[in-house]
């Protein structure tokens, strides 16, 4: 009984914190139309700032809380709104998602820069700690009962106040009602005299303040042994699941979702391991990570599709030209020639980096198909890459053509299987589902020591070439270049085919797509599968280059940065995919040559890139000034001038 009670208390308390976090997400989404993937990262920044002010600079602890929640968070929100989100109001789901994911990378980069030094332990004491170190608590239900810490009670009270207060604010108060109206029709709100961007600012500010509040409340719970950014941003995940339960609209349901999630997670931690035996010592930490993603995945699948809030709106869209067959063949030859020359010239590090970059480029091309053309955002592309690499490694000694073929087939099949249950989801929800899938695969497969022993990798060999006994690093680079060129040709062929027209048509208008008699279900399964297969092929070369594949190669953050860099260069272009891959591979290498003060060059570059992406939808290669002056390998993909296009979903047609 007392075990049950104490896990119930833990579940309610963590649920309350997730609830506060998720409510912030809901408020921002409803005011701005942007799903803030960085919500957890904002909480992390707040928790670290709180530690900084209180523990490191010895400010009074109440002052620290007030400064973090009521000054730092809203200021950060206003800055973020101005720099990143003001220009993309009403943009397509993919694009606003991309910018919000970019914000996540930026904030993670900031925490690494400011609080990344692993030698400092950033521990945060509990609230209501007495001078002698005792944490104040009350005992309920006698000896067989449960101990409630004062801070746990505080958290639940704060959550209740937030829940009720926000409900009143959004329904009764003028600013709140206007905030809800602005996302539905910013122009109408503008006509009624309110400034839409003021409402957006307010939406971001409230969202960030709630994230900060959650971060500050959570800091003493997770931070007794020291705060880490990973552990804090992980919380965002719990927030996502809760927000989806509330259908991104309903504040009370969001709290209900958060409480259920908190309880389920804690009961899983409390009861599962004893049944599974003591050998799984690390299970607790795995469960706290897996349960929320499984929960998120299940919730996404069972919440009725029709009731998901429609998210599309009026959008500015430039129309990219289609690369012709001649141009893509010329581009492919140029690419192979360029890298053959480089292979002969550069040193070992550069060889490895370029090979990896091109392998990432192949994964990038798979994103062009899926995200660039079909408008379906995947946050688990490195998972498919890992599946391909693993299959290659496990087939016939890991260095055969059969392995390559099987890798492509298996990752393609997994892609199709994943696509099936997620088909009726679109935009944001599909992105969340791929995120959940990637996380589950990471925790249950790649990071599972029975599949890949801890800290090691599965050996993967190189695809053999005729006339060459051993494929060395130089031959490898040429091999990858040929593969990347062929993949680029394939993507070009697909785009020019009737299937390619269908992909972009489905992305442009799902409603019109259905009314000409086309089933987006079939199209999505095919494109998902094709894209996963290509990512798996990329994995064969990625792992072949470095000799194996491990859990570290397939993390969410990797999928995310690759996606962002491809988007920053131009996700509807072949050149952008390859440059994005090369960038993702090159920056970590560059990092080792830089002073330690520049702790996170990848985050920094992504940050600058995302600010640019907020202004140029087709990324760097979409900037006309640039593309009219430079001739790209794959020719003519520069965007044409912007035109106003209606890009809304029919669900709003009422």
């Amino acid at each position, binding site marked *: 009984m007392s075990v049950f009670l104490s896990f119930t208390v833990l579940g309610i308390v963590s649920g309350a914190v997730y609830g506060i976090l998720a409510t912030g997400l809901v408020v921002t989404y409803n005011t701005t139309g942007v799903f803030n993937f960085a919500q957890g990262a904002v909480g992390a920044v707040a928790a670290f700032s709180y530690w900084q002010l209180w523990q490191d600079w010895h400010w009074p602890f109440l002052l620290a809380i007030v400064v973090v929640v009521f000054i730092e968070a809203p200021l950060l929100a206003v800055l973020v709104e101005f720099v990143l989100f003001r220009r993309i109001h009403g943009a397509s789901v993919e694009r606003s998602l991309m910018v919000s994911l970019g914000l996540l990378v930026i904030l993670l980069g900031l925490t690494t820069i400011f609080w990344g030094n692993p030698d400092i332990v950033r521990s945060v004491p509990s609230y209501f700690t007495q001078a002698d170190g005792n944490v104040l608590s009350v005992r309920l239900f006698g000896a067989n009962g449960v101990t409630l810490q004062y801070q746990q009670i505080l958290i639940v009270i704060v959550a209740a106040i937030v829940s009720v207060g926000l409900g009143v604010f959004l329904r009764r108060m003028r600013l709140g009602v206007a905030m809800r109206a602005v996302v539905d029709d910013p122009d109408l709100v503008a006509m009624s005299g309110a400034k839409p961007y003021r409402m957006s600012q307010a939406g971001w500010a409230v969202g960030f303040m709630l994230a900060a509040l959650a971060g500050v409340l959570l800091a003493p719970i997770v931070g007794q042994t020291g705060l880490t950014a990973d552990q804090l941003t992980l919380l965002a995940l719990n927030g996502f699941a809760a927000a989806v339960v509330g259908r991104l609209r309903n504040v009370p349901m969001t709290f209900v979702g958060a409480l259920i999630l908190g309880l389920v997670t804690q009961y899983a931690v409390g009861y599962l391991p004893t049944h599974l035996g003591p050998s799984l010592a690390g299970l607790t930490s795995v469960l706290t990570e897996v349960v929320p993603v499984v929960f998120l995945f299940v919730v996404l699948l069972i919440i009725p599709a*029709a009731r998901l809030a429609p998210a599309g709106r009026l959008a500015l*869209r430039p*129309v*990219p030209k289609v690369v012709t067959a001649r141009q893509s063949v010329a581009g492919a030859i140029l690419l192979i020639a360029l890298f053959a020359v480089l292979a002969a010239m550069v040193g070992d590090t550069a060889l490895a980096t370029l090979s990896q970059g091109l392998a990432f480029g192949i994964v990038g091309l798979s994103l062009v198909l899926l995200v660039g053309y079909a408008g379906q955002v995947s946050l688990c592309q490195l998972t498919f890459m890992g599946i391909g690499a693993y299959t290659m490694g496990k087939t016939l000694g890991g260095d055969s053509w059969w392995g390559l073929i099987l890798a492509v087939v298996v990752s393609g099949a997994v892609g199709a299987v994943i696509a099936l249950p997620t088909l009726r989801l679109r935009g944001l929800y599909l992105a969340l589902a791929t995120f959940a899938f990637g996380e589950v695969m990471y925790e249950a497969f790649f990071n599972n020591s029975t599949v890949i022993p801890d800290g090691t990798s599965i050996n993967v060999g190189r695809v053999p070439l005729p006339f060459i006994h051993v494929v060395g690093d130089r031959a490898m680079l040429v091999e990858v270049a040929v593969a990347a060129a062929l993949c680029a040709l394939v993507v070009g062929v697909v785009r020019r085919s*009737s299937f390619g*027209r*269908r992909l*972009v*048509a489905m*992305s*442009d*208008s799902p*409603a*019109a*797509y*259905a*009314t*000409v*008699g*086309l*089933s*987006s279900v079939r199209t999505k399964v095919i494109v998902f599968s094709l894209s996963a297969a290509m990512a798996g092929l990329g994995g064969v070369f990625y792992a072949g280059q470095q000799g194996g594949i491990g859990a570290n190669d397939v993390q969410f953050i990797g999928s995310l940065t690759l996606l962002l860099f491809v988007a920053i260069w131009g996700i509807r272009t072949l050149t952008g995919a390859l440059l994005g891959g090369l960038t993702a591979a090159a920056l970590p290498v560059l990092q080792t040559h830089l002073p330690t003060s520049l702790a996170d060059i990848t985050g920094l570059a992504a940050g600058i890139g995302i600010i640019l992406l907020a202004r140029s939808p087709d990324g760097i290669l979409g900037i006309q000034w640039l593309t009219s002056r430079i001739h790209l390998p794959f020719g003519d993909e520069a965007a*044409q001038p912007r*035109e*106003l*296009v*209606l*890009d*809304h979903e*029919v*669900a709003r*047609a*009422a």
Partner: protein
Amino acid sequence: MPPETGTPAALEVDGVSVRFGGVAALTEVSLRAEAGTVTGLIGPNGAGKTTLFNVITGLQRPDRGSVSMDGKDVTRKRTYRRARLGLARTFQRLELFSTLNAADNVRVGLEACGRASSSEAVGLLDRVGIAEEASAAVSSLPTGSARLVELARALSTDPKVLLLDEPCSGLDERESEALGGLLTSLAAEGRAVVLVEHDTDLVLQVCDRVHVLDFGQVIASGTPDEIRRDTAVQEAYLGHSAGADAAAGGPSGDA
């Protein structure tokens, strides 16, 4: 042309109701569209015309009522299935494939039903009168032409039932007249054409039957002549004492 009870109509809507929260968008709406005729649907903004189209095409699920085509109940069929049964539409708020040029917009529809020649796409654009825009980016077209691209795309599936949501907005008088002629000839090919339009002159001129929606309810149905004389319609839509003016091109109702 009075509805012949007994023989199934190309399109039949029966007792459809839709509520959005507390708002009744459609209440017990019934109408028939016969093959070979043009059926008009008029009513003030917010009367529920587009919602009705969404229900017919399956983009909006009705709370009550049914939709059938040629006597076959399609209420529970998905949008693309209905399209394959011969239902096509255009949209009031444009739903073009904005990444594709005009001809490719039509081509996607042609390819969807197994026809693939790009010359056929240009042929359809020619039929609606914008063949010269075939290779134009649809995002660069004026609204009127963009609507015609939607019409050509809707025709690409060779539909039996064609729903047109304000095809004339953005067209000048001469173009509207040409479109009216086109609609008559489309009906003459045996299609059932349903026309939502604010240009009441055009509706009363080309339609065989007209239904008037107001606040989600059908307040009148009949031939154009009957509609002109209907007092309820005059009050709700055409404006008081506008019965005679309507035919003479008085109020356009485009508010």
